[in-house]
């Protein structure tokens, strides 16, 4: 097996007196989908923020491709090739799909002006590859459905992530058909040889998509299982802490 793309060692995060995460360790390998599951308030979103650089951990080390990194904001996370797809869609609604794809990282032409041609071409190429069905790269985000928007958000993350894509409940706000579409897109990302960490409340989705499942309860890692070698009962028992008869 290849070297892990992300290693978390003994991560701890305190918010004032509250310990949100303690003694958390996990490895993610390239081309692998790891699901992170746990009850509300277990610390999943906090972990995503730690890995993406938004919250520096109180202690512990983050290692990316063998190199320990320290990050204090999301820009540093992005510089390390880590992208996040947020549950609440961090898209600018009245801008076009292609401007959103390149938000904050717009390419410039030789006159120092926005290179729209390039943004449009690259957007169309990627949208096609991922089979995100949108009217055009020129479409305004607010004219798209929830599934199409989440498709754009994932396409953006895919475009920029060289190492790791973090998805925090990417289908929480979507209907059944849209969820299936987004799941298909996530599945297709596996071929891109980046690590994928997905948070989900749907165990069906977790079993459909993931290679491994990591369970978090009250900020502590309860265990990691290979998806093929476990079942829903075991995962539910781990999430709730109750032994099932």
């Amino acid at each position, binding site marked *: 097996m290849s070297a892990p793309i992300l290693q978390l060692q003994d991560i701890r995060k305190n918010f004032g007196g509250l310990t949100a995460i303690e003694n958390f360790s996990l490895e993610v390998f390239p081309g692998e989908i790891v699901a992170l599951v746990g009850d509300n308030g277990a610390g999943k979103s906090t972990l995503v923020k730690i890995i993406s650089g938004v919250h520096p951990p109180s202690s512990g080390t983050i290692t990316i491709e063998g190199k320990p990194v320290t990050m204090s904001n999301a820009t540093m996370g992005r510089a390390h090739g880590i992208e996040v797809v947020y549950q609440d869609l961090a898209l600018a*609604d009245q801008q076009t799909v292609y401007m959103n794809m390149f938000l904050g*990282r717009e390419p410039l032409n030789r006159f120092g002006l*926005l290179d729209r041609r390039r943004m449009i071409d690259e957007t169309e190429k990627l949208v*096609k590859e991922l089979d995100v069905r949108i009217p055009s790269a020129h479409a305004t985000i607010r004219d798209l459905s929830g599934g199409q928007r989440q498709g754009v958000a994932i396409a953006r993350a895919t475009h920029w992530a060289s190492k790791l894509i973090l998805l925090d409940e990417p289908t929480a706000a979507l209907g059944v058909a849209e969820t299936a579409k987004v799941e298909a897109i996530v599945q297709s990302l596996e071929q891109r040889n980046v690590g994928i960490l997905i948070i989900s409340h749907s165990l069906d989705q977790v079993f459909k998509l993931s290679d491994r499942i990591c369970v978090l309860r009250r900020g502590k890692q309860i265990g990691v299982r290979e998806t093929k070698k476990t079942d829903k009962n075991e995962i539910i028992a781990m999430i709730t802490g109750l032994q099932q008869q």
Partner: protein
Amino acid sequence: MTSANTGTEVGSFASRFNLQQYVVYLGFLAIFLFFAFMLRDSGFLTVRNLSNIVLQTAPVTIMAIGLVFVMSAGEIDLSIGSIVAVSALTAAVTIASYGMAAGIVAGLGAGILIGLINGALVAYVRLPSFLVTLATMGLFAGVSRSMTDLRSISVTNEAFTGFFGSGSLLGVPSLIWWTVIAIAVGHLIYRETRFGAHVLATGDNARAASVSGISVPKIRLAVLTISGGLAGLAGLLYAGRLQAAKYTLGETDLMTVIAAVIVGGTLLNGGKGSIVGALVGSLMMGMLNNGLILMGLSVSDQMIVRGLIILTAVAVSLRDKSR
């Protein structure tokens, strides 16, 4: 565009795109034709009257450019009228003692400084721009009154009055040059630069902008500083054209500027706007002013008609936003 990607929403996308875009031009045309017909014997259509409209509108157009940036970033600047008076008076007083160059620097500098104060309070103290600029509007209205004890200061420097007012280059009046250059530069920055894109993203969804690595406080500081600087330039244009500065300059412009910007298709809540639209909106306001006077409406009737038109514009703008 690859037709394979075409989804079901193309129709609604296309129709929405068209209507909002052309409302201001249709409105402009309608008002123009209305006055051209109604005032055909009162001199509305003379070259002299039409070019007068453009000359009189120049300061409002310049301020409108600044307000497009401010409103696109989701902020507002109510202090521009007061900045006009402070800048014009500062320039006039400075020119009298130190000459034209010093006067320009002092006048523009005053506008930029007030803009920076607005911007810093909004961006870093995190106060709402509505309240900050409401306060500085009052504060600097007081400053402009106390600067010269309500007296008017005349500007006799001919280089200055030519450059900012009555002069011309290649047969084109300097106020038209200022308008054209400011619109061209403003449009380029707004539409074609990273800064313009980041202003729009900030007004559209500040959180999305922020997690995308855009420094939202810097954008807020920048737009209010630009607005202050352009209001300062408007002050110089007034001082140049009228060959005098007084605390009343710019006093009644705020409503006209806001109306021009909103009629021109810039959304009150940010994320979308147009510099060229603001120019057309500004010319429309100037034309309205001119036409209503030529029609013989009393000052109070003019105010009522203008107010009604602004109300209509705001209604259209908000309706679009909520769709």
